């Protein structure tokens, strides 16, 4: 894996994968490639994650870290009870995380179910779009029969296309874990390729595709590594740990192993893929461990919203409390930050 294969990011995923695999994409060629990737030593991986977790981030570094975390959050609501009102409130919080401090950065995106995309876009108004509006934020939608992914291909594609049509900038899809675990890698690959195609807008640009591996169901780090490679080969822009609906969700070792894949993919192709741990990251202290892990694995250039996100709902308020503590010197009660 030392020689760089010149792969153009804009190549169709299937062509690009064929170039990496050295032949047409099939169950057999994918299996040969994925199972030829060096294994993951679970003990070593967990020890490395634990040691990254002992970094002591203080004073000015902590202040920078907290602002960076906020700018990387996908502020999320994924409940059956979601309503347009709830989404409006979430968007307001995303735009003005700390009502008392206008210098507080905005989050990267709001993440909602597909049928709430229109409400989110509407609530954002002129602030819609991380790249298009100044100070704007994106709308991410979960799709493909999230969280289980147990629906027919056509339903999943329709789910995706509708969210994109409603204005979603990012699609968080789930892989078919059943197919993956029974070794039908080609099927998983094809589905990701198809969903990516469903992300194409009329103007030819694509909504960003985040591929959720649901690592809690893949069970082993070797599986996580293979699923990460598979998702990237199939054209995912981001690989994401979890739906948040299955325990365990994001853990530091799992995220580290995915960052290692992203680092290796960059070494191989020169292309940068994003990583999104989601679910279970609730405190600033935990989130800072993730920043350290990113910085020391892929490098600090990954600490930007196009390459790293936190999928979280309660994390933001803990970061705000820590942020207030840094500026005032004492802790506020939870009522000094707003709920969304």
């Amino acid at each position, binding site marked *: 894996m030392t020689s760089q294969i010149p792969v153009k990011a804009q190549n169709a995923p299937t062509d690009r994968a064929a170039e990496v695999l050295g032949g047409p994409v099939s169950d057999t060629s994918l299996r040969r490639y994925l199972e030829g990737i*060096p294994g993951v030593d679970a*003990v070593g991986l967990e020890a490395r994650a634990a040691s990254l977790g002992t970094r002591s981030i*203080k*004073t000015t570094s902590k202040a920078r870290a907290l*602002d960076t975390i906020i700018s990387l959050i996908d502020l999320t609501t994924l409940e059956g009870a979601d309503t347009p009102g709830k989404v409006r409130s979430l968007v307001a919080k995303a735009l003005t995380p700390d009502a008392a401090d206008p210098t507080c950065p905005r989050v990267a995106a709001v993440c909602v179910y597909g049928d709430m995309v229109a409400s989110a876009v509407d609530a954002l108004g002129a602030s819609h779009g991380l790249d298009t509006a100044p100070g704007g934020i994106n709308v991410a939608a979960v799709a493909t029969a999230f969280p289980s992914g147990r629906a027919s291909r056509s339903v999943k594609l329709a789910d995706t296309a509708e969210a994109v049509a409603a204005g979603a900038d990012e699609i968080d899809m789930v892989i078919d874990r059943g197919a993956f675990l029974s070794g039908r890698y080609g099927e998983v690959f094809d589905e990701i390729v198809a969903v990516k195609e469903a992300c194409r807008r009329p103007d030819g640009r694509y909504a960003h595709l985040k591929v959720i591996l649901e690592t809690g169901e893949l069970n082993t780090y070797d599986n996580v590594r293979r699923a990460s490679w598979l998702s990237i080969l199939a054209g995912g822009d981001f690989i994401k740990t979890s739906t948040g609906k299955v325990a365990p969700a994001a853990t530091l070792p799992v995220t580290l192993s995915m960052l290692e894949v992203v680092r290796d993919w960059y070494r191989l192709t020169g292309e940068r893929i994003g990583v999104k741990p989601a679910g279970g990251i609730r405190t600033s202290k935990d989130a800072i461990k993730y920043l350290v892990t990113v910085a*020391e694995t892929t490098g*600090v250039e990954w*600490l930007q919203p196009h390459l790293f996100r936190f999928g979280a709902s309660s994390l933001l308020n803990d970061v705000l409390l820590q942020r207030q503590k840094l500026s005032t010197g004492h802790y506020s009660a939870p009522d000094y930050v707003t709920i969304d």
Partner: protein
Amino acid sequence: MTLTTPSALDFLDYAPAPESRGILSLREEYGLFIDGEYVEGHGTPFATISPSTGEHLAMMAAGNAEDVDRAVAAARRAYTTVWSRMPGAERAKYLFRIARLVQERSRELAVAESLDNGKPIKETRDFDVPTVAAWFFYYAGWADKLEHAGLGPDPRGLGVAAQIIPWNFPLMMLAWKIAPALAAGNTVVIKPASTTPLTALLFADILQQADLPAGVVNILSGPGSMGSAMVEHPDVDKVAFTGSTEIGRGIARAISGSRKKLTLELGGKGANIVFDDAPIDAAIEGIVSGIFFNQGQVCCAGSRLLVQESIHDEVVERLKQRLTTLRVGDPLDKNTDVGAINSASQLKTITDLADAGEAEGAVKWSAPCVLPDRGFWYAPTIFTGVSTSHRIAREEIFGPVLSVLTFRTPAEAIAKANNTPYGLSAGIWSDKGSRVLAVVDRLRAGVVWANTFNKFDPASPFGGYKESGYGREGGLPGIQSYLTTGPTDAVTAAKGSTK
């Protein structure tokens, strides 16, 4: 892709996070610890300094032969009148108490060790001091079970043990020596290394706190000549030494023909073997901890990297990438990965050998890092293109310098790994269990780690083959070298009664 904020790009410049020194209050001067009290030595007191800055820490008393006489007499008295008569369960209580006091005072001991030795606080806090406590807890458990462990009839201590320990893990080596000796019923005269005596004398304070009977442990700081006096003292029954092979040889010569029992834990030139099917990220971490842990000043360091030729370039590239993230600097900063070299003389040894490596044609690469201008420092370094005949592949460097060699087949890896006068440690990295077991079987090394490196547990025996010494520390073998069994030897009994 323009949204990278400058703040995020600076993130890796972690702000200083120094551990507070407030918890440690050092005296200006530390005496020798003999017969339960700090006393003045008969030698010329010497200063102990912080190798990371050159800062003066404290004056240490120096013992000489006369002090050794006093200490051995105190140890003999304590052995005869108290410690050898005390039931194992009672000895255990003292060891448990010491272990708990070490835990209670762990932060203080960690700070002192980092100051005096130069190693990072993250190691003293997370490794050295917890291991010290673990060793006392473990051997406390053995003290009342010796009769039931199948060791033979009437297992009991040997008498007075003279112990000499090195500067690389000062307090941990002290624990490795004292805990099994006391558990078996011996009394102790111990000499810490002259560059790192501080924590041993702080430990004396813990012994007072634990109310350990006077004379059971005596701690003498002093020069090498005092160590010789300990080894040669006629009333010593057991000698235990950890340090260089050269001095170990001298000790073995000095006590040959005497009744004294001896264990030696000496140098090493450990081979870390990476096969092409290794879990590569874990292997890189293992290579790093194998040679840069404690600045490479570890007798069982994986100082020879044997990497399969097919993955050599990739491993070296990944290794260099990883080394650029190592933080070298203030040992008291919680984010420091690599601290200072222990002494000027050790720095010179490292520098000389590295120069020899370059002169012999190996290619040197050092991690880009800014070294402090005061104190003793050496940047993490790897040599590629090393041949088995190079000095850097044969001699123990005892510093943060890795020699990279290649092999083509398992047989060649085994042959190269064993091609050293030493035989202390080795490591194997492979995802294939059968290969790991087959190779382990043929390595002449006292400890072999598979898919990990530098892991220690009190229950696991540690020691070497060939010029790495003999005897084992840790586990049941570790206490056996402080025991005798069978009927009481008439000569020893008579001797004991006259003292």
